[in-house]
Structures are given as C-alpha cells and as structure tokens.
C-alpha cells in the first residue's frame, strides 16, 4: 500500500463503487473494442499471411495463434478469479465478487477452445483426437474446476452467499492447480515412455512469435471486454432496487 501512488489507490477505491464503475466502463468500452480489433487484425494477418509455414508441420501449425493464447488465458483467468474472490471475501467488495463469478464462464470458454483447437490439431499431427497426456489432462481438469464454480454459483439462490461460496472454491482450486499440473505430468512421464507428445519444438522464429504475442494481447483485451459486459449486466441485476440504476434506465428511455 505504501508503494502504490495515491492517485492509483484512489482510482481503485472509486472503481469499487458500482455507479462509478458503470459510468467509467461505458466510456472505456469503445476504446477497448478498437484496440481489440486492431490487435486481432494485425495478429491474424501476421500469423496467417506473413509468418512462414513450419518446415515440419506445414500450415497446420497456424492453429497456435488461437490455441496457445486461449490456453494461457484459461490459466490466467482462473488466477484472476481466485484473486478477485479473495478480495471479495476479505474486504467484502461487491464488485470483486461479481468480477470473480463473471470470469468463470469466460475462462471455461477459453479452456474449451484450447481443448477443442488442440484436438483439431492433434488429429492430423498425432493421428488421434485425444491422448491422456499431461497437458491435455490437466487442462480438462481445469475445465471441470470452472464448471464446478459455475454450477455452485447457479445452485445457491442467494447471490451474495453464492459469491462467497465461489470465492472459497476458487481459492481451494488455485492451491490445487499446481498440484494437478505436476501430478499429471509425473503420472504421465512415469507411466509411459516417449510418445507422440514429444514435439521437439525448435525455438520459435520471430516472425511466428510476434503474431502470437499480438494474439495473446488481443485475447487479453477480449477478456476485458467480455468481463466488463458481464459485470455490467450482473451489476444492474443485483442493484436493480437502487437509485442510480433507476436513474440510468430512465435516462436511457428518454
């Protein structure tokens, strides 16, 4: 807290207030969309046209421009969810609770995309849609963790209570993620010798790497956009009896 400059602290304090957040994100949104479109366009152009074909895999490697960023996002969003949940538990900030639960469906979608694209890539490359490999298995378990969070939130009627439950579950899951990751890795390497999963990837070339990083950035911005949209809807629903929501809706009607 001492290291953070005062304006930044004040900014976060103000963002914790729902009306302020709502107004601020309304102004932020067009900018985010423009940045997202620019990043995605340049990233895809670089990845699909400028980057050379891989000397072993040909053009089918290009799926990494979707696959790898989604896999990164799937882990990143889980951590964001757990941190937001912890903030909500400790400081009882309503907005943090909403951020935590709104992240879950987005994270689950990214996890699903990572699994799906990986499987599409695996069919021509490994000759199979699915192997019980360390990476794949731990990603699948991550999907189950997300689904557990979503299911638990849906099962509890009182949404304040549900947010707390979700935060606890997300925190327990975050302890487990490294354990799952390494246990699965262990299990695999102990279990079977070198299999199709040994890719022996040569260090990636710059012309391939830059589009990949651009896509990763664009996915981050996309997450932010999707998150903000979900949080705004959830905010309106939860605060529907407050003055500022009524004021907002009346204002829009005119």
């Amino acid at each position, binding site marked *: 807290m001492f290291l953070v400059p005062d304006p930044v602290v004040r900014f976060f304090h103000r963002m914790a207030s729902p009306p302020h957040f709502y107004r601020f994100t309304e102004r932020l949104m067009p900018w985010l969309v423009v940045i997202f479109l620019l990043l995605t366009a340049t990233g895809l152009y670089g990845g699909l046209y400028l980057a050379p074909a891989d000397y072993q895999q040909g053009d089918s490697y290009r799926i990494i421009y979707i696959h790898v960023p989604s896999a990164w996002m799937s882990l990143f969003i889980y951590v964001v969810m757990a941190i937001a949940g912890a903030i909500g*538990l400790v400081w009882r900030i309503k907005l943090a609770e909403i951020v935590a639960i709104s992240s879950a469906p987005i994270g689950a979608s990214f996890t699903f995309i990572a699994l799906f694209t990986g499987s599409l890539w695996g069919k021509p490359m490994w000759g199979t849609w699915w192997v019980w490999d360390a990476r794949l298995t731990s990603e699948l*378990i991550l999907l*189950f*963790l997300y*689904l*557990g969070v979503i*299911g*638990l939130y849906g*099962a*509890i009627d009182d949404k304040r*209570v549900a947010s*707390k*439950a979700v935060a*606890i*579950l997300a*925190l*327990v*899951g975050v*302890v*487990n993620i490294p*354990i*799952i990751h390494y*246990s*699965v890795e*262990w*299990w695999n390497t*102990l*279990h079977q010798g070198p299999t199709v999963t040994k890719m022996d990837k040569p260090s990636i070339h710059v012309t391939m790497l830059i589009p990949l990083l651009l896509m990763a950035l664009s996915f981050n911005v996309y997450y932010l956009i999707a998150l903000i949209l979900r949080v705004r809807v959830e905010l309106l629903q939860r605060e529907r009896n407050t003055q500022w929501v009524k004021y907002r809706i009346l204002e829009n009607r005119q």
Partner: protein
Amino acid sequence: MSLSRAFFAIIRRDLVLALRRRSEVANPLLFFVLVITLFPLGIGAQPKLLQAIAPGIIWVSALLAAMLSLDSLFRSDFDDGSLEQILLSPHPASVLILGKIIAHWLVTGLPLLIVAPLLAVFLGMPTHSLGILLLTLLLGTPVLSLIGAIGVALTVGLRRGGMILSLLVLPLYVPVLIFASNAVEMASSGLPVSAQINILISILFMALVLAPWPTAAALKMSIN
C-alpha cells in the same frame, strides 16, 4: 472447556453417534465392495487384465465410496442445529471441524483399509504390493475426507447438493488418485515407490493444515 478437550469430545460424540447408526458405517463399505465386484463382471474376468488395472479399480472405488459417504459428515448436525452450536462455541471452528472430519474418516475411511487387501487378492494383485496399497490408502483416504469436507461444507445448505458435490470434489481428488494408484502399480512391478509415498505424505499434511479453514468458512456461510 479447553480446546483439546472440546476437540476430543467432538470426536467421541461423532463416533458414538456413528455406532448408534451402523448403517451409515456399513453403506460406504458395501458400496466399495460392490463397485469392485462390478468391474470383473463388466470387463471380463481375464486374470492378466484384472491384475493390471487392480490398483486403479481399487482407488477409483475408494474415491467414489469416500465421496458418497461425505453427505453424512455435516448433514444431521446441519438439520438439527448442532452444527450452529459448534460454530458458535468460543473455540476456533476449524479445529472442531477437524475433529468431525477425523471422526468421519475413522468411521468411513478406515474400514476401507480392512477390506481392501481382501479385494486386492480377489483381483489377483501380487501379495508383495499389498503393503503399499494399504499405505497409500492410509495416507490417501484422510485427504479425501479433508478435501471432501470443503465441498460438502459448501453444499450442505442446498436441497440438491449431490450432483454438484461430485463436480466440486472429484477434480480436487485427482492428485491423490494419480500418486496413490501409481505407487501401487509401481510396487506391483517391484519398483521403488518412495517418491510417490513422500508426495502423498506431503499432500496429507498440507490438507490437514489447510483444509479445515475453508471448511469452517464455508460452513459459516452455509449456516446463514
């Protein structure tokens, strides 16, 4: 009442309650035996095949039995309000809850250890790996109870918590399953298993220290 006395009083109370309702003790055990007998019927009784998958079968069955038994952990106390009294007591809730979890494990987890060697012999597991099987069960089933307690504490207030409980708990059981069944399999082929055993021990201690807190927090949330 001192903390340690309260802790042991809770364990004693839960054990006495379990002895009065013996069916709750017997059910997970019967389930465990039944699931394991289903496997030879379902996949055919070739001794080689059964022997190869025996560690996995036993551990998956133990996992399911542990999960099914979880509901009895807080259910009756939640219904009759004694859980509220436990949480209201001046002692730290996490310690008292740990007492409940230990009692629950003594009633539902420990019996699995007694029948597991018998079933392992039925499945044709080599006798020299039975010791390791027992050791993994001894180290692993308490973890199942501890982690499961978090899930059941989150869902105890719900009317239909059963399905959601499995979705919450089973992914978190994965590490135990992997290391335990792997250790038994290695032991069957006569390889050293100290690495897996050490990791199971560390998981056990981590769960022992960390799991009661979220459980207590989740219970407080469910009570409201």
